């Protein structure tokens, strides 16, 4: 009887240790995983807002073209300039990576207007992307409000890590 009781006690102690080790492993795994996600989302948030601010400016130079552009911006006097908007679209079509360089980001983005299309597309950004087919491990959506074609318009920017 006495031996049996000891056996149960040892089993319990060993089981507890194994269980505790699993719990500790799980805990630290979860902790590290959460921090990585948090950092990434913070980066994406920062860069998303930076890119949105850039897009909703006049750009540099203010009359920039594909050849002269230093900063991409599509607004003048608080309103979307359709010419610049088209240039932005064309630039992403011809050299998407250049636009990423100009936005100083290594992440992908997708910019579009609510209920509006540009050059027959829903939006501007990573080729082949639209607002519904983005495949990303981390994604941030930035919402802005501006004037397009004499109407208040909501615009969105997705920035994401594939």
């Amino acid at each position: 009887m006495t031996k049996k009781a000891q056996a149960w006690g040892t089993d319990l102690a060993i089981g507890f240790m194994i269980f505790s080790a699993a719990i500790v492993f799980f805990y630290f795994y979860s902790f590290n995983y959460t921090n990585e996600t948090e950092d990434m989302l913070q980066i994406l948030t920062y860069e998303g807002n930076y890119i949105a601010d850039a897009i909703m400016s006049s750009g540099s130079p203010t009359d920039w073209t594909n050849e002269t552009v230093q900063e991409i911006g599509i607004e003048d006097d608080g309103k979307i300039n359709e010419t610049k908007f088209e240039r932005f679209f064309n630039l992403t079509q011809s050299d998407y990576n250049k636009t990423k360089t100009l936005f100083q980001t290594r992440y992908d983005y997708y910019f579009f207007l609510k209920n509006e299309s540009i050059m027959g597309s829903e939006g501007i950004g990573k080729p082949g992307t639209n607002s519904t087919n983005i495949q990303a491990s981390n994604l941030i959506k930035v919402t802005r409000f501006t004037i397009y074609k004499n109407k208040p318009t909501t615009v969105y920017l997705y920035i994401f890590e594939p």
Partner: protein
Amino acid sequence: MKTKKAIFFSGDALIALMIIMLVLIIAVPRTYNPSTRTSIHSDTMKVLSNLKVGEIDNTQIKALIASGDIEDLNKSILEQIGEFYVTDKNFARATANEILSYLDTDRNIGIWYEKELIASKNSTPIENARNIEVERQIISGIQEGNETTGYSARAYLSSDVQTEYFYFGGYVGDGNISANIEYEGNITGARIEIATNKNFSVYINNNYSGYYESSTSNIIPAQYDISSYLSNFQNGSNTIEFVGEEMRITGGYIRIEYTGFAEETTKQYLPGISGLINIYDGFYTKNLQTLAVSLHLDSPYEIFLTIGNKTIFENSTSGEETITITNAEISSIINYNEIANKTVPIRIGISNASYVINETRYVDAFSVTDLSGSMCDCSQSGWFSTCKYNEERCGTHWSCSSGVCTEGINEAREANDAFIDGILNASGNQVGLAGYEYNADLTEYHQLSTDNVSLKAEVASWLAYGGTCICCGINRGISGFSGSSSEKMKVMIVMSDGAANYGCSNFNDFTGSSSGSAAQDAIDSACEAYQNHGITVHAIGFGSGAEETTLQAIAACGNGSYYAGNISNIVALYQQISEEILNASYYEQTISASGSFAPAILYPDSYIEIGQTSSEEPPRGLILTVEEQFDNASAGTFDIPSDAAIISAEAISYSGPRWTAETWLNGNNIYQISDYGSKYIDLGDPYAISIPKTLIQTNNTVEIKTATTSMNTTEGSAYNKIIYKIQKNSSSYSTICPIIDGCSWTIEFEDNTNITIDVPATYNGSAKCYYTSASQSYDPNDALQEATYKLLQILDLDSNNKIDSKFSENNLQITPTEIKGIPFTWSTEVQIRIWD
């Protein structure tokens, strides 16, 4: 036992469960909830601010425009909501919600005007918010309970009334006088201010324009209003002619006022003369670069033109001719650097006038010559020269060896001979001689005479010896004029080579009997000669031993000039003086004529053209011309208002037949005739002396002195003036007022006269406004009335509720302008808040 085992297993499971729960409790709070910075409220404010109601593609807002509920299509949505916030909150809410309907966001957002929520899009009420972010903006002109638009008005004085002056010179004569004056526009006023010697008629462009009395004095001008003859004027060039017998103008001007635009001219027209051309004038060489002269003349006599002290023209004409003197010709004679930016005298007259006119004044001249021992240089051997200090002549005293004077007396004799020849060159003149040493003996005297031979014989008999009694010589000369006609010019030339050492006990003392101050006695005798006998006394210091101080005082008190001579130039000096005496037969600036003579004509289209290095744009705005009379015969003051800029200023001088000798501004000399020489008879005499703008301060004092020679400077005329032009602030603005209507204004001027004018001119209401010493009333809620009142305050320089009399009524044209829709100064804060 079974029961015990169950207890153990249950306890293990319970412990394991507790551990799992504990891990989960710790792990769950570590899940990431990313911060979500948003600019959506800032974006919304920008959309509201940047989008105009006339632009927005929105059915509901277009309907409001169509219904007239929205009038100003240039307003931003933000301002329009603000206006609706004041006028109709339902419209405000509808419009704001319409804008928010375009916004797709999961954030709570609301628009507040002041503390009132106008529109929102939210899932939770703000009262439950954990975080609130706010974007603010102020919109002006909007305040609940007040008007949303007002009126502003500007009142100003029109300056299309111009003032133009034609200044006559310091002396313009003698005969019929004319002036050329130009303008482009409609003449509204004309007057003349001149000092003249004769009654005269005025003809404007050959049309009779009145007969007028002369002024009371040649330094006291009279004013003549010729406004009733404005119809005789014409656009462009006008000739105003003054017709009077042997008329002369000793300073004055013609002033016209007209509506139009003044253009700066580089020409200064000369006064026209038909008679004896005798002009003393001046001109201002502002930014001088080139000079040219056009003289339109018809003169059988030689006419000369002197600028400064340089004669640039001297010739007669064969009938009527226009003579052009080019810049090249003038610049070869005059150094422009010496006369630039100054008032320069100009003189135009008839050469050798005494030959042209029947006669000038005859001259009686006495030469009073020092024959003391010092006039003899006994220098042929060393110690002989001491003889003259023993008051003896060379070679006759026991202590002197024989010898003759080699220098001094010989030159004095030659000089006197030249003087005799010079004066007697013109018939009717007489010369007398008075030699002196320790007395003025009759053996060295010759009475006034036209006998050239006799006079020169007397000179030849003169010997040098003895002391020096200058007063004896002067007294002898005075006595010699006893038979001289009062019509004649009396001149005495006193020469000395040393110090006076014999005095006189009275003015009839020719013996040198006084033991008092010999020098002062000589000065007193000169004063007696001028003051009580009308004899002008000139003095000559001969050689280095002459006592200049005494001789200068003699000339000063004798109203003459002092000259310094020596062995080499004494003869030439006497010749020069004799010529000057003849020239001085022009009595001061006046030329005397009798008998018949053919008139010389200088036409009034003659001019001096001053090419300038730079030109100034004609001043715009309200230009006021102010005339400020002197406080007394010496000085006058003028002040420049703080909100005015000086354009030009002149001091005008009624110097009569004398010369304006000095002009000072605030202690700075701005004109000095002696800069051009001491012989004033050859120099011009400006009537208007330009005052440099750079020297003009807020408070200014101008002083003027006149003279006939450099030694007799006196004060000028109490009727002198400062005439200056200022550009003055002439506009005022009202605050934003709820009404703009106008008023019938009664305005009192400094001279206590009133005018009543409607502002605006089309006003036909019943409102009465006053700017008078008795009443100040207007409606401050009326933009026009307030602007007008503020303008009148500006024009009330001394704040005595009267518009300053310096401003002509003709200058006052009040023209208000109104602007609708000026926002009021009150404001409302708009907030756009987001919260979660």
